[in-house]
Each structure stands twice: as C-alpha cells, then as structure tokens.
C-alpha cells in the first residue's frame, strides 16, 4: 500500500451556494483539515461537515466508485470524489459542483433529473421483439463475446462527468451527451432490441444528438469507468451519417 505523507494540513476551497436561501450569492469558502491515512474526499468532506460546518451539501451513496453520485469538479476536472485519495492531491484543493446540471446546493447537483429526461427521450431500454417473456423456458442464447461487449458499454454509471466536461453540452441545452450516445450504441449492439438504424436516426440524427459532438473528446478523458466513448461516438456518427445520406437522397 502506498503511504500517505505524514502530518499534512490540507486546505479545501469549496464553492458554497444554497439556492433555497433568499438573497444568497455563490462564494468560495476555505476549510482546513489534518490529513489522515487513506483519506478520500468522501472522508474529508464528511469530517468537515461533522466537525466544522453542518450545513455543507454534497452527495455520496456507495462511496466505492460504483454508483456515480459524487461526481464534482476537483481542481477544475470532473471526477468521482469518493475514490479520490487526498494523498494524490496537493495541499490546496478546489471543489465545485458539476456545471450543466441543476444546482441543488454547494456540491450537490441534480444529475438524476437530467438522466431521466435523457432516458425518456432516447428510450434507453430494450424494445423487445415480442411482448411478454416465457420465463419458464430456457433463455435465448447469446454469443459470449457479444454479451461481454454489451456489458462494456453497459458499465456507464450516469455520473455526469462526460456531460460536465462537454463543450457542446454548455452550448446546447438539449444535447444528449456522451452518456446518451453511448446508450444508443449499447442498444444498437444488442440483438434483443428490435430498433433499427432508422429508429436510432430519429433519436440522435441531429445536432442535439451525434452531429452535435465537436470531437473535443473530454468525455473520453474524464470518464471514471474508462468507457470507449470517443470510439463509440465516431462509430455512431458514421452509421448515422450513412443513414441520413440514404434518407435525404432524392
């Protein structure tokens, strides 16, 4: 195990703003904390809240890097706070809420609402070929490698890092983000989904979909699950461009 440097005092500059408070304005507030062994931002923020400032708002759920609740801007870069070890940070750390999403307060943002809207729009579920499942019978087989490829894209935790890092998302309120495009790529790969490229074109064949992406690729760089986002977006763009070409042809 890597050792934590002994005896550091850490300084956290945290963006504070409670929209529920009439007349409140955003400000930076500084907290200092003695570093402990194996300290993560989950531990640090909870300690600040318990011992220094009980009003500080932030979100953690699993604290194990699998649920996607705790994404925030850590020194200007979106990442999961729970698995960020303070020993990998300098003496001063700036924490801010993810941009793009509706702010709830301090470091807490409403990713859930954004993701639900995106899911409803892109219909992010398997559109079954037949109604009903005869679940008493042996399941339909699937190629083992294909199942693994689908899982690779299914690992998205909807943390919002890709959206927070996205240039298009800043400019286009309705852009579905890498998270949305990756989901379509995932269902496109899944033979259980009855939808065709023409259906997917209806969902993402515009500037709020795959053609809105400017290929800045921050989504790919900041994805905590290291999903192959740039490859998937490029692939979907090629497929959708072909689709559009065929559809728009006189």
């Amino acid at each position: 195990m890597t050792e934590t440097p002994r005896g550091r005092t850490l300084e956290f500059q945290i963006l504070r703003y409670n929209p529920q408070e009439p007349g409140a304005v955003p400000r930076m507030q500084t907290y200092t904390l003695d570093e402990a062994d194996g300290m993560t931002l989950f531990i640090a923020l909870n300690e600040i809240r318990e011992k220094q400032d009980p009003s500080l708002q932030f979100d953690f759920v699993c604290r194990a890097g699998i649920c996607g609740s705790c994404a925030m801007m850590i020194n200007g870069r979106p990442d999961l706070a729970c698995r960020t070890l303070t020993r990998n940070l300098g003496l001063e750390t700036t924490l801010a809420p993810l941009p793009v999403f509706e702010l709830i307060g301090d470091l807490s943002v409403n990713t859930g609402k954004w993701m639900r809207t995106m899911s409803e729009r892109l219909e992010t579920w398997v559109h079954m070929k037949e109604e009903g499942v005869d679940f008493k019978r042996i399941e339909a087989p699937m190629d083992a490698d294909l199942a693994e490829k689908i899982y690779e894209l299914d690992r998205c935790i909807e943390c919002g890092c890709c959206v927070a890092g996205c240039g298009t998302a800043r400019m286009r309120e309705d852009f579905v983000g890498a998270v949305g495009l990756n989901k379509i790529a995932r269902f496109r790969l899944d033979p259980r989904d009855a939808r065709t490229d023409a259906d997917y074109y209806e969902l993402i064949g515009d500037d709020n979909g795959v053609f809105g992406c400017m290929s800045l690729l921050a989504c790919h760089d900041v994805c905590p699950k290291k999903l192959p986002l740039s490859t998937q977006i490029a692939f979907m763009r090629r497929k959708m461009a072909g689709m559009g070409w065929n559809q728009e042809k006189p």
Partner: protein
Amino acid sequence: MNIIYTDVLVIGGGLAGLRLAIGARRRGHDAIILSLVPAKRSHSKAAQGGMQASLGNAAKGQGDNEDVHFEDTVRGSDWGADQEVVRMFVNTAPKAVRELAAWGVPWTRIRKGDRQVVINGQKVTITERAEADGLLSQRDFGGTKKWRTCYVADGTGHAMLTAVADQAIAESIPVHERTEALALIHDGKRCYGAVVRDLVTGALSAYVARATAIATGGAGRLYRNTTNAVISEGIGSAIALETGHVALGNMEAVQFHPTTIFPAGILMTEGCRGDGGLLRDVDGHRFMPDYEPEKKELASRDVVSRRMEEHIKRGKGARSRFGEHLWLDITLLGEHHIKHNLREVWEICHYFLGVDPVKDLIPVRPSQHYTMGGVRTRPTGESPTLRGLFCAGEAACWDMHGFNRLGGNSVAETVVAGMIVGEYIADFCSSPAADATIPTALIREFVEREQAKLDAMVKRGQGEDASLIKREMQEIMTGKVGIFRTGSELDEAVESLQKLLVRSRRIALKAHSPGSNPELVTAYRVQKMLKLALTVAHGAQVRTESRGAHFRQDFPRRDDAQWLKRTLATWKDEYDTLPTLAYEDLDVKRMELPPGWRGYGAKDYIDHPDTAARQAEVEAARGRNAGTDRFALQEALMPYEQLLPEVLRGRNERLDERFDEPLPKAAA
C-alpha cells in the same frame, strides 16, 4: 397541505421497489416510487458477484434444481427461514433471471468447450456442453452444492438495476427522487400512505395510497464498519416500527461479510473466493481448510467470518497501523480473469488501496453486510397487522434468510420478491379490500406531528449533537453487537443505546440553513436508527443460543428446543426505550427439511423435541415416493405452490429437464 394521491406508493427505488412497481403498473395500477437518491444509485447497485438461480447450464451446475437451491438456502439460514417462502423463492428465481435476460441484462454467457478454472487452489480444466453454448453462465458461491450464481462479470447489481430502472422509465412510473418518508399514515388498523419530506426544499407532503410498500433495503449504517451505502440506514423499517403496530422480525440476525477491504469496509465480492481465491494469514498460510475441511473458503458467510476473527485472535492476523487483518489472494486466477470477471474488484483495489490484485494480496477483514431481519410480512409481502402495508427485499422479513443469508440470494430476492409482492399488491388494489375512506383529519394530524418534531429540533437552542450521537451508536454496535457476542457486552450495549436514545430526544441543531439541511437529516434519522439498533441489541441479548450469524460465546450451541422461533419486536409507545419482544414458533412438523447439521460450521446443537418424529415422516415419504419424480415427493412433503401468484407458478425448463413442447422458433 400538499396531498398526492396514487394507487401504490413504493418507498425505495432499488431493485425490489422498482420491480414491484412495474408489476403493479402492468396490472393497471398507478405507482409512485419515492427514492432518497436517483433510482440507479440505490444500494442494489453494489451487488457484485451474482444472483442465485438454479438454471444448471454450466458444467459444474449440472444437476442443480429448485430442490438443491432450497436445501442450500435452508441450511444457510441455520433453519431460521420460513421453508414455504424459500420454496416460493427458489421456484421463481429462474423465472426472474430469465425475465431480466429478456429485458437486456448482459449476463455473462457460456462458451462451449474446455476452459481452465481454479478449484481448491488447483488449476482444473472443465468442459462446457455444446448445447449450453450462449446460455447464462454460473459461478461458485459459498454454502452451495452446485455452481448456481448467474452473473454479469462482477457488476451484477449494476447491470440488473440499470435494466430494471430503465424498464420503470419505459412504464412511465414516476420516481420522486430525493424524497424521504418520515412516517406512515395509519389508524392502527390500516395504512394510508406516508408523510414525505422533500430533500431539496425541506417541505413536507402527504402521499396517500391504496397500498404502501416499503422497499428501503437494510440498516448497515447502524454499524461503524459496513459494506453498505451511506443511505442504508434502515429508515423504512424504522417508520414501520414507529407505527407501534408493525413487528420487525429477527433484527438480531446481522450478516458480516468475510472479505471487505481493510479498513474502508468496501466489498470484495464472494465471487473472488467462488472463482478460486484463497484466504491467507500473516505467514501466507491458507488457513480455512484447517477450520472447515469440507467447504474451506466457501462455507457460509457467518462461518467464514467467525473463522477469520478466530484466526486473528490466535495471533495470525497481519498487522497494519489500522489494526489487524487477513489477506485475500486472487493472484492465482490470472490477469485475464481478474480484468474480465472481477474488474470492479480490480478498480476498487487500484483506487482505494493502490494495490494490483493481479500481483498483490488484498487486505481484508469482515464487516457488517446484510440485515436478515426486517418488517415481518406474510408470504404475500403484506403486513399481518397493518392492512394495506407491504414490504419486500432486504427491508422485509417474509422470511427466506433466517439467521444467515447465502451469497447471491439477496439480489435474487430483490427481483423475486418484487415479482411476487407486485402481483399481490395488484390483487389487493383490484379488490374491494383496498377501498379506503381516507380521513383527511388523520392526514393533517400526521403531517403536523412530523412538522412539529422537526421544528422542535431546529428551534431548540442548546442540546445534543446529532452526528456525535450517531458515531457513538455505530461504535457500540460494531464493538458490542458484532460477530462474537456475549451477555455482558450486550447488556452494556443495550444500556448505552437506551441512554443515547434518551439523549437523542434533546438534539439541537447548529445549522439553520433553509432547504433540506443535512444536519437536520442526520438528526431525525439517528432518532429512528437508535430504535432499530435497540431491536438488534435487545433481540441479541435475549436470544441465549447461537444460530447463523447470531453467535453468543456464552451460548455457543444452536438450541432448537428453546429457540427455533422468530423474534418479533414492536415499539409500543413513542417514549419507550426498549422494544417489546414476542416470539413466533417455527413449526418443525411442517418442515420439508427438518433441522440438522448444516454441512459446515459447528456440529453440536440441541434438537427440537419434534425433529426426530418429523425426520421419520420425511424419510417415510421419501420411501413411499421412491421412483416417482421429484415434484411429487416435494408436493407430498410441503405443498407450497398455492402461495405463489398464478402467473408465477409452474416448473422451470433446464437442459436436463426439457419441456415436451419444442421451444418457440424465435428463441430456438
């Protein structure tokens, strides 16, 4: 006063709550799901290793069926489970896993032919059947006779939750995220819904429903060291307890998972050991075979956790500045296996410990993991004492886990219970029994009472600190109500917790920020959590035997003569400092599998006076039914199918148990 009406109010947006809401919705009833967090962030997400369902596809799962799954689960429970409920569960699990396959869960599939696996520390080649190619794969888990655990690498809960949460969106079921039920609205006989707090604005509303379902998961955060998410504080169970009319069953039955990273307590799936990982001590010695020659690392979780702590007490723990621990060794599985089938494990080791499990050992020690107890219900999920209240999943005690749950049975239970209870809720809502004359005065009274409680804490100038009280509670639970329990320590724990409960009535806040106010959230939750902690500690104090995960050093034997019964805890008066305990006998005369030795763990136990006679009856029935099929024998021993909703009845097809009719073309 804001009042929201619906048919089914589901409290909890994890797998159980989502699946039962989908069931009710598909039967034409409206449902609203309340969730502390976005549904896909629920703790169901954290299930890594897999879901037990006796498909018997994999070579090492061949011969598996409901009967084997049933016996494993009952033995695992140390005979504390309701055997009829276990039967309902094992018959529905294959249907649940196949439904999820159709819904898009990318289950890990079988590749036909030879593959190398690690069994008992040895590399072994097994050959998968050609006809199993592409079907759901199974891996080995603790306490099971066959490889039965279906999985999606080690992100099973994640993949299941994603698919089921998306199905709920497909069904247009609203999830009211960041809301919390503070109290059930009831008149002592009928539940009418809940008082709900908005965790963004802090405002209270009443949600009024024909049926209310609690699916809020476990209460791991009663403990300092737990694998559970920070939202697993048992508040759903606590509000049921606070009605005074609903019993919590077997709250003293608390599971400790053997392999959680030390000291953070994050789960390392049982799949690590199921796939061939070993436990080693300070000397690098593999110690489990010394204690458990039959099942070794793959005995049930209660047994492995105790053996680990026992080994540490013998001075064989590795030392670190945080204390002592043991080592989990998965290096023998190889890089390809770890990076494909145990990738979350790899990530967690990498990010939290800075170790590479391909080459390095993982420091582990047991932590609290699962709440076997919960809201006591009938096999239908309905409360026997408060009409219109249902409960499913980890929050419930219906009771399929008894005193110890097998790995892979909880995530399976979430969807199975969601399917079963969803049907029964729909039946209830379709029947005149669900008609309710809802007294608005009662609703107003409940909302005002909750508002007054919150206001008192906000306005009280001087008083106790909520997070200090919470920390003290967690220390007491981990220190004195843990893996090894003694009467004297439990006495101390109960006394200290009672004092804390009294102190918690004097909590004053330091922060008065408008909105949700995180300090206020901690304050009202810790008052509820202390009541739960007392049901655990007091239940453990009174139960003078050892059964499953409840281990009393001063009463080390399982005592069926005295204790083959389920604890029922109620909270009679708001100002009580102890739950009232009552007991419900388990009827040996109706058991399909009468009590005996589990096949691992301690061999001495005290028999129930009816056990010998029942055992003789069971053997006679086996004799009479020799030569008939297994279903006839089962039916003769303990008929249960009438307990299942009609759509979930019926046999499950397997490669070795084919139905006569050919598969429909699309699936073949």
